[in-house]
């Protein structure tokens, strides 16, 4: 079947899609966006997290046909050109990346969290990231990165009170 949808703002068409393919597979193998990672394939690990119509979901559990005419946002869409999103920059600066396999999902999920909660508590961060597993167990640095990104975004809001952020 043919699936037509929007990816990171661009109209996208995938041909010869088998009905049993997941959105994750379509993104990685047919659209050329391998940022979202394929790990558990059952919604447990969050490495495949993408935006679907504005909400983060596990793309491994979305059947290809379900995304027809919908909007998908992937980790590749977070940066503006060569400028990393504040969440991405914070993960770099905090050393929150070990093997990196869980990182794309964590970036998307954190991006969503910080769009909705400007000053999340540690407990809120942990709950928001409860569906993202890091098998390197690098959670302390990940927490540092989320706190850093939240603080930087808050500073940016203070510097630009017109509300360009979030």
């Amino acid at each position, binding site marked *: 079947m043919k699936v037509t949808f929007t990816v990171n703002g661009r109209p996208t068409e995938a041909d010869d899609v088998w009905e049993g393919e997941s959105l994750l597979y379509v993104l990685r193998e047919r659209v050329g966006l391998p940022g979202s990672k394929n790990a558990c394939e059952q919604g447990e690990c969050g490495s495949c997290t993408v935006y679907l119509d504005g*909400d983060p*979901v596990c793309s491994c559990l979305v059947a290809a046909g379900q995304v027809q005419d919908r909007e998908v946002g992937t980790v590749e869409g977070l940066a503006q050109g060569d400028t990393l999103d504040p969440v991405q920059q914070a993960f770099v600066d905090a050393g929150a990346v070990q093997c990196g396999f869980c990182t794309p999902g964590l970036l998307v999920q954190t991006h969503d*969290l910080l769009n909705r909660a400007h000053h*999340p508590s540690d407990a*809120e961060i942990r*709950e928001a990231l409860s569906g*993202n597993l890091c098998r390197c167990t690098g959670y302390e640095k990940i927490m540092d990165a989320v706190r850093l990104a939240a603080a930087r975004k808050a500073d940016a809001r203070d510097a630009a009170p017109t509300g360009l952020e979030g």
Partner: protein
Amino acid sequence: MRSFTYTRPAEPAQPWTELGPDAMYIAGGTNLVDLMKCGVAAPGRLVDIGRLPLADIEVDAATDTLRIGALVPNSDLAAHPVVRERLPVLSRALLAGASPQLRNLATLGGNLMQRTRCGYFRDLAMPCNKRVPDSGCAALDGEHRGHAVLGTSSRCIATHPSDLAVALLALEARVSIDGPNGPRAEPIEAFHLPPGETPERETTLTHGELITAVEVPMTTLGAHSYYLKVRERASFAFAMCSAAVALEVREGTVRAARIALGGVATTPWRAYAAEAALIGGPPSTGAFARAGDAATEGAVPGRDNGHKVELIRRVVARALSTLAATDTPATDTPATDTPATGTPKSPGTGEAPRTGEAPGSTEGEHR
């Protein structure tokens, strides 16, 4: 995964006309796509009902009823201001389930239809009466420390996995259904079927029928309600034991009580004996402990899951104690396990349940 055809109904009023004998409905897909990948579900056709106009949350002021469309995502329902204020047990139960990503996809109807997480059900190499009728039950003599102690039969001891359904049971919700034989509605208590001799049959739905909505009465009881879930880690795990509780206390006497259990029974489980143990008496620590005892009535533990009987006692008593400590209907922090004293968060933010601690770890409110 078996090959299948995929279709989205053009006629929203009658999606069953698109169905064949070998077909299944798909909505959010969080459970079905997973089961298709592991081979437990193998439909020849998927009918995508995800875009039917069944995603509204409406308040019927005349009857004080909340009507929730079957396609409302769990995250939206949990964040709905009316749910948070007047049905806190529902919001708490939703936020205690799954992860944010899954709650964004998963729907109300799909949650009520989700299949058990019994490992033998998901393992095609093992016998399972629920997956293949009359093939046997590997859990009876196998690894069953997480399995049910209530509502079991000699053919199945798998737990029902839903948190949401436990809250809806305590709220005496009604399930609206439509299908080839016309619309009908029934109490959620009747909707889920105990395994008995036919564990493969889990609900009253017949082929072609689908849930269209759930109606929840918004009562005084519902406004003073609470959900406690105990699991093996602090978040994103199925319940070892959970309790949805609601109390109506006037002049120091319990006038009405609702208690439903999750994670310990083959269906969402109403603990009537525990409710009866409270009615007419004071909301005291002793009464809550007696309710906890009564909630275990009929429990049949196996070799390795006797701890669930004690868990039921403690979770029920602690849920009631926590609820009783909130004098007025809880209107904020629906995801925390402490009495509602915090600052309301903006809807939809991932909140912070402290749901993993052992029930006996708080000071001696019971036993």
